[in-house]
């Protein structure tokens, strides 16, 4: 059985093709202004890598903030359930997941099967989310992927940077630049701010190991090390932290197809699940 999971996030679109539980192919692209187009492009890119087409898929599930507009998905599942499901596959024994995406950030607790038992999400502001790191990198004219390692060059927590508002943080960083504060100090400060912001989320759901970090920020060692220090545990980072949600969606697609096959044409009589079918309404 081959299934597809598509995750339309605020910064990137992700797709995972799954055959009998094994990842066949995956793709990550930048999200364009049109979510339908992003979903279609990333799905076809991942499928092309596997030499397959949409018609070869037994089931397709979408997730991410653009999940409800993916035209070819049979069902949409929240990114919270998908991250738990995907992390459960990639990080054996995972119980707490911190997903740091572009626009928001969530701490999720799950059981041994990858079922969510509780979760919290950040507030509306993008401070504490991936996009704030992009803004910092832009300001300091460095590449996003260099940000984490550079931040680690500072011995301590860096200069203080606002953790509650990206606009404040931006003006603080501008004035540090005028004072010729070393880049590593500013970056360390930005990473500390982000880490302290999301720390509260993890504490609110309660930390139980194994602890995994998913989403784009998991690639930023500056933030990851500071979080580990503050929480006193080692964070497990899946090999491709960005595709965890799409992988979860592909697994949900598989479960959906299996359930459907099992139910056969027994029809409507039983109490159905609202998560069952019903398309990408």
């Amino acid at each position, binding site marked *: 059985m081959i299934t597809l999971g598509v995750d339309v996030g605020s910064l990137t679109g992700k797709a995972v093709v799954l055959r009998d539980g094994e990842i066949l192919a995956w793709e990550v692209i930048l999200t364009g202004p049109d979510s339908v187009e992003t979903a279609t492009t990333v799905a076809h890119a991942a499928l092309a890598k596997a030499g397959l087409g949409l018609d070869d898929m037994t089931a397709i599930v979408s997730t991410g903030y653009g999940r409800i507009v993916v035209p070819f998905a049979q069902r949409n599942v929240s990114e919270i359930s998908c991250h738990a499901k995907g992390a459960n596959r990639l990080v054996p024994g995972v119980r707490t997941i911190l997903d740091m995406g572009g626009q928001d950030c969530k701490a999720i607790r799950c059981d041994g099967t990858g079922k969510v038992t509780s*979760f919290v999400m950040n507030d509306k502001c993008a401070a504490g989310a991936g996009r704030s790191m992009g803004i910092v990198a832009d300001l300091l004219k460095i590449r996003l992927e260099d940000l984490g390692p550079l931040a680690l060059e500072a011995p301590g927590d860096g200069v203080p940077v606002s953790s509650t508002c990206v606009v404040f943080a931006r003006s603080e960083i501008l004035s540090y630049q005028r004072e010729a504060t070393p880049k590593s100090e500013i970056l360390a400060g930005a990473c500390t701010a982000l880490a302290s912001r999301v720390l509260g989320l993890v504490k609110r759901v309660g930390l139980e190991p194994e602890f995994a970090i998913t989403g784009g920020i998991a690639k930023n060692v500056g933030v990851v090390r500071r979080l580990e220090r503050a929480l006193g545990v080692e964070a497990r980072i899946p090999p491709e932290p960005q595709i965890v949600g799409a992988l979860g969606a592909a697994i949900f697609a598989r479960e959906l197809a299996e359930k459907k096959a099992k139910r056969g044409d027994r029809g409507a009589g039983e109490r159905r699940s609202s998560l069952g079918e019903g398309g990408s309404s």
Partner: protein
Amino acid sequence: MTGPARPPVLDELRAVVRDPATIPRAWKAAGGKVAGVRCLFAPEEILWAAGMLPYPLPGSPEPVRLADAWLQPCTCEYVRNLLDHALDGRLAFLDLLALSNTCDITRRLLDVWPQCMPGTPVHLVNNPQKLLEDGNRQFFLEELRRFQARAEAVSGKPVTPEGLREATRLYDETRALLTELYGLRREDPPRLTGPEAFVAAFAASILPKDRANTLLRRLLDELRSSEPPDRFGPRILVTGSALDDPALLELIEEVGGLVVADDLCTTSRWFAHPVGTDGEPLDALWRMLNKRTLCACTFPTEARFDRILAMVDEFHADAVVQFNLKYCHPFLHESQPLRKRLEARNVPLTILEVGHDRSGFGQLRTRIQAFLEMVEQP
């Protein structure tokens, strides 16, 4: 929603909720007087007996504009929205504003309102906040008498014991009809959706009660002869702040939940307790008000939690959503104690902070959907 046709009278009720101010305006045009009421302790029966139309002051889902000059932006978004209505003339029909001694923001309207809408008298019923106590009777009755005198002075019509008894009977009928209507949601699938039930109750609170009762009776008839909509999903009880907009309930149902019960100041808390016709009418009113521990500003809090748990059982709810209107402190304070009570019974709870202007609904959708998925996965 697809499926069997919905009762036609719902459209009429929806129109009331969509544009509530047409009701008091029509009342005024016919020569009547209108009293705005916030919230549960300025008894509407007294106002009605004095010949006035009690109006529960629904807001509108839009960002606050003018009121921020009068109240801090970190205060109840509903009340600030209401103040906007006062400031831009949308409440020009008010002849009286009747307040209760409840949350700070409601109480402090006593000072702020006259600055924003000079000329409208404001009366605060200084109800005790510790209820279920016989010891407060004399004090509370005195407050009710003062309120009655104020109502009479504004309307120019004296309140007689017969008039008050008549008003009580009318309101009790509304309460009985709404209780019956809400009872239909015990069924699986429920005979009416969460937003439909909300609209019926909220419209009834806005309309003159004789008119409301006619429409509710029609709704009950139409519902009994209609097919229940074929729906499935986790059964949700919604509890929380004053909700004056069905959008949140619609969102919960859109992502697959069935809102089977609501415990809200604008709906079931408002109609939960009948007054009855035993004894002196003012005394009967006191007895009812003394039971209204449903308002988060009153005590004992445990009585309110007991009711929520009883509703979980009665309506077979799978989970509870606590809705906190942005900056509504009374309900935020009880979120964690409520969680403890529900956890002890293994009832999942999610707490949602909701903007009165519907801002942040995108993320809210994700939160609600994830919560329902969590409740539903075996």
